[in-house]
């Protein structure tokens, strides 16, 4: 019976029923029985939407920007799906998902399907859930999908990496230039948006971002302190050129005869509250998408995503098997107590629990 309910739900989703889409996403995020069958079924109907991920620190104006972007696409006759990810409490699992408030431009417009999600304490599972929810929106027929998340940690970075294009929102004056050097979300941006561009310090932030991007373009340029041979040209090119990505060393007899098309991250200024700069942002997003398709990176990304999804699912399934094994052996509490009492140690416990699994896999002939 369960199977029939799931198929019916998928059919209604494909038919464009909003309630069915909403319910499918609920099943995905609560991992309720049968959700895997649903995702399997809709998989074949995906691949039409372009997916943009938007991240940045709290208060940078992500939701307002997303609202205006959605409005822009709607005005062009396209349909939009938005997934907004907010953190949940590590103590109670509770969450206040507040991004919906800012969707004022799309009031009552069902063709902007806005859905709030929280992490629900799933280790690494959030990116799987988000990716599956994106599939649901894609299969439903949304032209544009936007994933919005606070750029706070690895979880959020993983989520936003499931998008084709990653937009990082930066607030003017959000720290000194050391912040720009730090590893993290600034490394993953394809497009940087300096929002609230009317604020003091905006132009400095733009300049700092641009400097960071040019340093990042060709990491080797900074390592080559001594000039030797043809590399000297490279250095000169990388320093003087803007927008060329510093990767065109065609004079070198390298493996690649054709210079690959290169994407240099762009910096766009916006004032999301008034909508200023949104058209430039839309253009830049379109440029990036064109680059992705023409360079073949779109396909490559899809492959990488699929690989990551498979890995993630395998990890979570193995985790479950191991949790069950732990329960079977009396639960983790006893092991933990034994470790604290110095009767054993974490490595020894792990070895005992995982040994049967290892043996089982290693003993296979094929």
């Amino acid at each position, binding site marked *: 019976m369960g199977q029939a*309910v799931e198929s019916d739900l998928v059919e209604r989703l494909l038919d464009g029923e*909003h*309630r069915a889409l*909403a*319910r499918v*996403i*609920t*099943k995905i995020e*609560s*991992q*309720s*029985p*049968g*959700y*895997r069958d649903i995702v399997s079924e809709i998989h074949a109907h995906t691949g039409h939407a372009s997916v943009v991920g938007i991240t940045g620190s709290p208060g940078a104006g992500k939701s307002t920007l997303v609202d205006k972007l959605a409005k822009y696409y709607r005005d062009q006759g396209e349909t939009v799906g938005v997934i907004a990810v907010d953190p*949940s*409490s590590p103590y*109670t*699992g*509770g*969450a*206040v*998902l*507040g991004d*919906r*408030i800012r969707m004022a431009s799309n*009031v*009552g*417009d*069902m063709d902007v*399907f*806005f*859905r*709030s999600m*929280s992490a*629900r304490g*799933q280790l690494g599972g959030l990116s799987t859930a988000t990716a599956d929810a994106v599939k649901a929106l894609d299969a439903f027929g949304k032209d544009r999908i936007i994933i919005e998340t606070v750029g706070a940690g690895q979880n959020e970075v993983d989520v936003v990496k499931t998008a084709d294009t990653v937009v990082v929102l930066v607030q003017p004056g959000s720290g000194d230039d050391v912040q720009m050097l730090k590893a993290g979300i600034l490394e993953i941006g394809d497009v940087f948006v300096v929002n609230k561009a009317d604020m003091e310090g905006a132009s400095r932030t733009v300049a700092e971002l641009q400097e960071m991007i040019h340093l990042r373009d060709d990491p080797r340029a900074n390592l080559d302190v001594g000039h030797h041979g043809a590399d000297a040209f490279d250095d000169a090119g990388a320093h003087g050129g803007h927008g060329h990505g510093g990767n065109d060393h065609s004079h070198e007899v390298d493996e690649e005869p054709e210079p690959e098309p290169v994407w240099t991250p762009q910096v766009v200024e916006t004032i999301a509250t008034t909508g200023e700069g949104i058209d430039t942002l839309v253009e830049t997003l379109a440029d990036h998408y064109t680059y992705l398709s023409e360079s073949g990176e779109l396909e490559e990304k899809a492959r990488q995503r699929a690989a990551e999804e498979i890995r993630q699912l395998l990890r979570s*399934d193995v985790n*479950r098997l191991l949790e*069950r094994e732990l329960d079977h052996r009396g639960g983790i509490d006893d092991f933990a107590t034994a470790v604290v009492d110095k009767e054993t140690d974490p490595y020894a416990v792990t070895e005992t629990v995982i040994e049967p699994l290892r043996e089982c896999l290693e003993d296979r002939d094929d």
Partner: protein
Amino acid sequence: MSADSEQRTIRCLIAKVGLDGHDRGAHVISRAFRDAGFEVIYSGLHRAPDEIIQATVQEDVDVLGISILSGAHNTLVPKVMAGLEEYGALDDTLVIVGGIIPEEDRPELLDEGVDAIFGPGTPMQETIDFVKENAPERK
């Protein structure tokens, strides 16, 4: 447990409908629900019934809590209920109303399909318990 071990999390929309400009109560209940482990979506002030319907349908919430102080409940709440019906969302959404609702208006709201009304001074735990006991199963 099967491979799909469900993580039951109650989702609520706390909605302010209409023109009243006070949402301290809505904030307090949002926070109490959050601390009870619920996922709470807060609508913000001055929402039209259409917005509440859109949010309830899209977010697939188990519970819709309408907070209303302005006295316009007799016109606004039925609009929301009719919209939920239209999208097939009325049957599996628990609808609760909080705020200033005169005793004589209550039967009509309950007739419209509101599941419970919590007036001023209701202990928070009572509301939380009601939600926990009555949140509909998602099928």
